[in-house]
């Protein structure tokens, strides 16, 4: 297979697509860092080729019969055999395409957003690194390769979140993201080891086959599934580890769009979907996942209701939507989760990119400030953002509507109605907080007529500067328009996608007939959420204070993220610093440092002792030599 790799267009495309961003990363870091334009050109060119490859792969394998797997031997240890290569099946092809599309659009958008930044070349290098890691992860044939690139994705995200490393909060946020995802990854790795030891294989296809139940006991499967799910919790910011994601908004906004909406955090959900059959072997683990997803979704929605930072709102919304996806998957509907992942990638990237335009324009993250300065003047971003928010809320015939309905259908099929109620409540809250933001920007209580207001269409130019600015504006606007189009039309591809993903024989995941009331209820709740938002923020003379914000303790609770960071702090202070760190410090000081110091002293002392032997006294040296020779002679002749 490997000998004819250049004759097989599929493999060629997969290799090109997956490796080119890495080549670009190396090229930029090694050669072209001082030249921002060249670096950006290299990066964008490589991601375009990757995009073409991904689309080629997706279209040429639209009617895929069997998963295609290319693997080279990489690690052989006794019975274990870990290959390295590509696995092309429906899910990985879809994810590859999503990643390529979003990365491409974000990189194009960044041409405008990051223009003139001193770290422009570095930025594109990291973008390439990220694209490489993410794409290779998507098509990994084994969980070990998956894990390696999963960590590389974490590294790239750390670098991008902490991109403005001069800023203290940014580097802190980067560290927080890195460390908190690591906490989940440890569990993930332990789970993988457990599978490897008991099942002897980390191949994705093998893990998804029925062999697992034959070779591992149910308890073991549940345990390893829970452990592996730790990775999802970390990466997708699920319940106990939520708070790194909002903090990670310190990076440049396109980074937020790329990492924290469409790809990196989606990697967690992707992993869930990737070994979905493995998880579904354990019903109790699935129940835990469902609970975690639900808690995450509700918590994050409440947090989003009170924050004033536009990016924070979308960050919380991302967390909540990820929780929603986990709910869908855990409810047993593979297609619903993946479909929502796809649509969410589109409209959430759109939301972030739109917010990026506002932030770029008004240099503030505060939505009230944006509204006051005339945010509605920016027509294209405003329209696009409204479309995306509507999709997020599940307004009919936008992409979000279809995917949300799919998940709702899956939830409705559960025996316990509480999940459905939670899901519907989440939908209501989602609609409320997203349109709260829209209305605050759209209908500010008072508009300050500052010069920013003219920027809308850039009708009155400020000479060359404004002209240049307009160019950048359109560089940023085009990805928005493309994504908005995707958001509008993607929902209508539900049936083909479903056929592609689950092969049609599964039947549709959500019951169409016996839950006919469900779409009406969901849409009704979404509309009422929007209505409530309009009443409080949109109508003339509205107080612009939400119903939650009127009750101070609740507002504080939500704004402080349910005091989760305080719990982390306490945990860190008492458990980690108080016990472990202390012990390790002692071990370090006494045992390790002492040992090394002892070795040093022994060496110096030994050298000092030995130096007496080298007295410079030729005769003593000779004497010893002869004495030894004579003794050797005596030894041999006696």
């Amino acid at each position, binding site marked *: 297979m490997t000998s004819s790799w250049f004759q097989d267009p599929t493999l060629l495309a997969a290799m090109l697509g997956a490796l080119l961003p890495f080549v670009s990363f190396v090229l930029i870091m090694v050669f072209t860092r001082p030249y921002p334009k060249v670096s950006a050109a290299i990066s964008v060119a490589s991601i375009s080729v990757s995009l073409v490859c991904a689309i080629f792969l997706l279209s040429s394998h639209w009617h895929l019969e069997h998963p295609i797997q290319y693997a080279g031997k990489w690690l052989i240890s006794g019975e274990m055999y870990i290959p390295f290569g590509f696995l092309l099946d429906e899910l990985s092809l879809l994810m590859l395409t999503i990643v390529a599309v979003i990365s491409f659009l974000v990189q194009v958008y960044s041409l405008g957003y990051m223009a003139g930044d001193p770290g422009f070349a570095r930025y594109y290098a990291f973008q390439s690194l990220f694209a490489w890691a993410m794409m290779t992860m998507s098509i990994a044939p084994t969980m070990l390769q998956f894990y390696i690139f999963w960590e590389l994705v974490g590294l790239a995200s750390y670098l991008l979140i902490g991109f403005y490393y001069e800023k203290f909060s940014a580097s802190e946020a980067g560290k927080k993201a890195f460390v908190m995802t690591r906490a989940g990854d440890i569990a993930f790795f332990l789970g993988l080891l457990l599978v490897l030891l008991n099942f002897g294989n980390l191949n994705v296809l093998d893990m998804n086959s029925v062999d697992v139940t034959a070779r591992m006991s149910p308890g073991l499967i549940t345990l390893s599934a829970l452990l592996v799910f730790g990775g999802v919790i970390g990466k997708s910011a699920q319940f106990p580890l939520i708070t790194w994601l909002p903090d990670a908004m310190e990076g440049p906004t396109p980074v937020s769009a790329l990492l924290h909406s469409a790809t990196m955090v989606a990697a967690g959900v992707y992993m869930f979907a990737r070994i979905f059959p493995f998880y579904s072997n354990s019903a109790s683990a699935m129940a835990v996942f469902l609970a975690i997803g639900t808690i995450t979704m509700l918590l994050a929605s409440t947090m989003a209701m009170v924050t004033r930072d536009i990016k924070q709102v979308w960050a919380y919304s991302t967390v909540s939507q990820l929780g929603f996806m986990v709910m869908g998957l855990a409810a047993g509907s593979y297609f619903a989760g993946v479909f929502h992942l796809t649509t969410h990638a589109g409209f959430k990237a759109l939301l972030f990119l739109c917010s990026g335009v506002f932030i770029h324009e008004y240099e503030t993250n505060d939505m009230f400030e944006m509204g006051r300065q005339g945010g509605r003047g920016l027509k294209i971003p405003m329209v696009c953002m409204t479309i995306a928010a509507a999709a997020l809320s599940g307004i009919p015939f936008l992409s979000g509507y279809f995917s949300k309905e799919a998940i709702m259908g899956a939830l409705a099929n559960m025996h316990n109605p509480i999940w459905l109620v939670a899901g519907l409540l989440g939908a209501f809250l989602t609609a409320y907080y997203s349109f709260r933001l829209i209305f605050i920007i759209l209908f500010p209580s008072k508009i300050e007529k500052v010069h920013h207001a003219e920027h809308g269409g850039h009708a009155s130019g400020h000479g060359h500067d404004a002209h240049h600015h307009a160019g950048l504006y359109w560089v940023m606007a085009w990805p928005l328009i493309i994504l908005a189009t995707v958001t509008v039309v993607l929902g209508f591809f539900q049936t083909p996608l479903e056929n592609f993903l689950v092969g049609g024989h599964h039947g549709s995941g959500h019951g169409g007939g016996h839950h006919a009331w469900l779409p009406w209820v969901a849409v009704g709740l979404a509309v009422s959420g929007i209505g409530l938002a309009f009443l409080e923020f949109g109508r003339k003379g509205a107080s612009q204070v939400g119903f939650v914000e009127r009750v101070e303790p609740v507002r504080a609770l939500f704004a402080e993220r349910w005091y989760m960071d305080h719990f982390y702090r306490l945990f860190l202070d008492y458990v980690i610093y108080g016990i472990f760190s202390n012990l390790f410090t002692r071990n370090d000081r006494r045992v390790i440092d002492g040992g090394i110091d002892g070795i040093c002293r022994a060496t110096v002392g030994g050298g000092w002792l030995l130096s007496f032997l080298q007295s410079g006294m030729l005769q003593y040296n000779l004497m010893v030599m*002869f004495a030894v020779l*004579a003794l050797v*002679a*005596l030894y041999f*002749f006696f």
Partner: protein
Amino acid sequence: MNSVQSLIQPQFLAQVGFVGIVAITFAGALIAVFPRDILYNVLGLIVCLTGVAGIFVYLGSPFVALMELLIYVGAICISIIFAIMLSRPLHLSLPKRRLPKVGLAMGVGAVVFIALSTIIFRTAWEPALMRSNDWSVTTLGKYLLTRYDLVFEAISLVLLVAILGAIVISGYARRSPS
């Protein structure tokens, strides 16, 4: 006279001569090693080497004995005396001897001696089966220029290099700062 002649047998004379020569050798060796004044040492060495030459005569090779006298006594010892004259002002006080060092040297010497004697007396020395009796200097010269030609030339080269090296070393030493 007859009785004296019978008393002094050639065999006996040879024995006495041998003992005398060995005594001379060791006396010379002791003088060469022990006194602190180097000049005495050289004179002792000369005496000792003369004794060794006598031993060579007893071992059946007057030619080698003569060469010994010529080269060792005539050349090496004289050059050592020259070196002493060049290097050490005789009026300076002699370095004191340190007893521990002498003791140590004696110990090592004794150990070596014991080891050597052990080897000598524990080895069963076997003479060769076929032994020729040709001791003539003519044969020696023939051998040197035929069978041992290469060794002969090598030793000549070594001597040449040594002489050149000696000149170079003392030449450099003259130029070195001191």
